[in-house]
């Protein structure tokens, strides 16, 4: 029982990332009808927003401390971040420590801007072209974005730790009456899950309860009629692209303490997120979220020693196998609607 719970918990954080990326993909697909192969790159750019903020906050100047010697006997050079100089070591250190959560504030406007520029500058010109062209051009864009990041930050993963007060783990087992240390769960993963849930909730609430969201939903159902009513639906769809980019970016920012970001992390997630979208049902937002969590948890179950000894390598292929089964038995996906991308 405790092992079961542990696997479900382990699946939640990866599932959250899948769900967030798939949600963004579905938003873009549902509104603009574009398949965005660069969405993984947006996730990666989000992660590098956190890296950038960490680097920015750690900007420091060097002083030579005559009293201390390094191992060669020269006077030791001490690096002091400017922040510690300005706000004192206590406050400054705390700000630096909290760089990942702070990066969220930075990432939201940046990602919205990136999304809007991408849509207006490039994808706008591809609405009338075949899906293959859309795939190809966003694929090219993904390569370019990756390589730009690689140029600035190199190919190695960059560690971006979570705030030190959040690095511990929470003992779930004790809470539910199991043995201590049977079900422990890192705080940050818990935060990631809660964060993902609130983002997903926010997006759904935005679409469901605001006038803007209502117009967008109407546009998703019938774009032509909405624009005939004198509403500038293009502008709203562009905004949705920005929001989708921000969702992917935030997923990336918060994921950095779980896995250090490198330039191709987006692509690794993208392939799986596409599978998630297909399993959930193309164009269905709840389907994307549901499938994201389901597949994340499934993957985590397949990674247990029991599963890998029974069927070696099941953890590597389980998601694809499930996708194939779903597509063959329920071609529309779990919650796909009739008439969306049927051909």
């Amino acid at each position, binding site marked *: 029982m405790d092992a079961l719970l542990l696997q479900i918990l382990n699946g939640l954080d990866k599932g959250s990332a899948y769900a967030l990326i798939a949600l963004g993909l579905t938003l873009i697909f549902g509104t603009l009808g574009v398949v965005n192969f660069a969405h993984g790159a947006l996730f990666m750019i989000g992660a590098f927003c956190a890296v950038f903020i960490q680097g920015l906050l750690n900007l420091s100047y060097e002083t030579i401390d005559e009293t201390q010697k390094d191992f060669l006997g020269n006077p030791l050079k001490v690096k002091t971040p400017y922040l510690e100089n300005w706000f004192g070591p206590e406050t400054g250190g705390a700000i630096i420590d909290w760089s990942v959560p702070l990066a969220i504030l930075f990432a939201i406007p940046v990602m919205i801007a990136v999304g809007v520029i991408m849509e207006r500058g490039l994808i706008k*010109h591809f609405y009338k072209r*075949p899906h293959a062209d859309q795939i190809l051009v966003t694929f*090219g864009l993904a*390569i370019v974005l*990756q*390589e730009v990041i690689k140029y600035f930050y190199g190919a190695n993963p960059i560690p971006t730790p979570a705030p030190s007060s959040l690095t511990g783990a929470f003992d779930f087992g004790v809470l539910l009456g199991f043995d201590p240390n049977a079900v422990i769960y890192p705080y940050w993963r818990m935060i990631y899950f809660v964060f993902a849930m609130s983002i997903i909730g926010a997006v759904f609430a935005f679409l469901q309860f605001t006038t803007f969201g209502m117009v967008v939903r109407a546009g998703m159902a019938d774009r032509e009629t909405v624009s005939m009513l004198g509403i500038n639906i293009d502008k709203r769809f562009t905004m949705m692209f920005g929001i989708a980019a921000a969702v992917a970016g935030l997923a990336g920012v918060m994921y950095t303490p779980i896995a250090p970001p490198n330039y191709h992390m987006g692509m690794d997630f993208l392939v799986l997120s596409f599978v998630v979208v297909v399993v959930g049902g193309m164009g269905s937002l709840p389907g994307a979220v549901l499938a994201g969590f389901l597949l994340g948890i499934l993957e985590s179950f397949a990674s247990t020693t029991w599963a890998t000894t029974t069927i070696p390598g099941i953890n*590597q*292929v389980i998601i694809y196998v499930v996708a194939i089964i779903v*597509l063959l038995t329920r071609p529309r996906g779990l919650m796909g609607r009739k008439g969306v991308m049927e051909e």
Partner: protein
Amino acid sequence: MLGLNKNDTTLFVVIIILTILAPFLLNPFPTESTLAQFNAGYPDLMEKFVVFGIFAIGFNILFGLTGYLSFGHAAFLGVGSYSAVWIYKLFTYNVIPALILAVIVSGIFAILIGYVSLRRSGIYFSILTLAFAQMSFALAYSVLSNPKFNLTNGETGLQIYANDLQLFHRESLPNFPHIFGLSMGSTYKLGVGPWEFQFNVAYYFCALMMIASFYFAIRLFRSPFGMMLRAIKSNQQRLNYTGLNSRPYMLAAFVVSGMYAGLAGGLLAVTDPLAGAERMQWTASGEVVLMTILGGTGTLIGPVLGAGFIKYFENIFSKINDQVLHQWFTFLPDGIEDFLVAIVHPFIGKGWHLTLGILFMLVVIFLPGGLVEGGQRIARIARRLMNRDKAADAANVSAE
């Protein structure tokens, strides 16, 4: 000739001549000159041209004719390589059985993947093939290399070791892939003045394969089967309404295309007897898409051009470094020189992929027909200019 019409015959003959004379044509600069780094006439690179040419021709049969964009074609390439190397390991270094097995195994693989993927079309098809290829990559990379059942040798890649079985290997035969005793690695070097031309067995073998593949592709393009595939591209629904089941045609096209990729994979193992999982990764699938689009989708010559273009510039761009750049711009004033080098720097050396990505986007945006369409446009403009000149001359003559 050979059942081809006049234009196709010309094209075919041109291709044959180009591939045979490639060691000369690609080596225009003397060995000692500073421009020698632009030479492409050495075996390693020429083999890549033709092998990836085959890969792209095969991909074009699927994408160019039917419009189904497969994003997982590298899986067949990898399967081809693995099966060829297994023949080396178990039986013999002779390349003929290795290639036959490579084509057969990748064909079977294509039947399996195609049967499932072709149930969906459009974007679903792309995603499904991508998922299959990633699955194969994951399998090859980790799962199929456990100690009990080591099929792929994981990260190291499948290689031939001294204690391998090699049933039909004899002492007299070369310890390298060979064709009936003639080693694929043997190269004849011809020195003419300052030039040196290299004639490599593996290159000519691969070139022969490419010519055969090209011929088969022409015949396929012009056949009723090819017409049917084009009909699928233009309107599959209408085709289905006429009471025709298009799926067997699609599956056949997919399998043929997969076998081409398998052949290319096998040839990679002919030039260098090892196989690694990274050949199956989705970036490799993306690369063949790039080659085909860049050259010209749906044209006969396009994919070959694209493959050559990408492989050539990959090689050249990654060789250029800042030092070379400084040499080039040395005639400029120092400040401008440094500035130019700093601007170009991100695009060369390790930044080649950035250049490739930008180039690819530009082609998709502005030139969907690729290099072939570009060539046609230029030809059209030139013809119009010539005609205008002629018309102007004629006007002048009549005025006089």
